[in-house]
């Protein structure tokens, strides 16, 4: 009985933390319709567990690492839109996302370019630890908008080295082969 009560208490304590790391991605409804290509990924706990079951990790350490990363996450939320011409979206929509990031979120990288890609990377370092408990990437290009929100522990070095591994094709040089959702 005590154990059940403890589990419920832990779940109640952890749930707001997980929700706090999750971004509410409210974008204009017609954004996807205006985009030439769009990606919409929403995977939460049970689906991530299921996804990790279908990842073979027998062969190499990288595959195992990806599987571990996926099974450790509580949520993966991605919206990515690629437009045929510039000015199809208002960059101010990102302000609504930035305003949701509480004090535990730290901006670790800002790449700004007038004509190219602007990228902001935020990490959630809870409880003063050095471990990343959540990740938000806001990427705005003249013809592309990408929002990534990973909830749970994330190894940034591992994440950046994933391209080309474990069936993850390279996107460098711009991902014209994006899968549609």
């Amino acid at each position, binding site marked *: 009985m005590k154990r059940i009560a403890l589990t419920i208490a832990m779940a109640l304590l952890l749930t707001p933390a997980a929700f706090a790391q999750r971004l509410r991605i409210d974008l204009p409804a017609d954004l996807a319709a205006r985009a030439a290509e769009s990606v919409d990924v929403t995977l939460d706990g049970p689906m991530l567990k299921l996804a990790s079951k279908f990842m073979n990790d027998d062969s190499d350490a990288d595959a195992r690492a990806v599987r571990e990363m996926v099974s450790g996450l509580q949520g993966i939320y991605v919206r990515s839109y690629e437009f045929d011409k510039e000015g199809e979206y208002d960059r101010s929509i990102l302000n609504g996302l930035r305003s949701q990031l509480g004090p535990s979120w730290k901006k670790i990288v800002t790449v700004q370019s007038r004509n190219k890609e602007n*990228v902001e990377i935020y990490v959630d370092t809870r409880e003063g630890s050095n471990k990343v408990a959540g*990740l938000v990437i806001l990427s705005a290009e003249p013809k592309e908008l990408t929002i990534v929100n990973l909830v749970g522990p994330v190894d940034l070095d591992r994440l950046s080295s994933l*391209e080309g591994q474990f069936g*993850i094709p390279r*996107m460098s040089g711009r991902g014209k082969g*994006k899968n549609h959702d």
Partner: protein
Amino acid sequence: MHLERNLERALHRADPAPGLADRVLKRLEPAPPRQVRARRWQAVAAALVLVVLGGGWVARHEMERRAGERARDQALLALRIAGAKVRFAQEQVRGIGSHTNG
């Protein structure tokens, strides 16, 4: 005289109990066709139940497999996009660092 009477009593013809012939014949007869048919139907029904249960299990397994593979593909796509953005940012930072140092 005594012997004769005993022999006569022993060899006296006695009729069998009524219905004995029927009972013997009934035992020798094969099961009536109605019973055989009922057993066949039972076997068919059992086989159908097995097929339905097995089919249901296979269908459920297949649905789970498809959902799992779809979730896996989506997770990998999301990680691919996130990885590309982090990598781009890292390269930009390294580029600035190398310009500053050089």
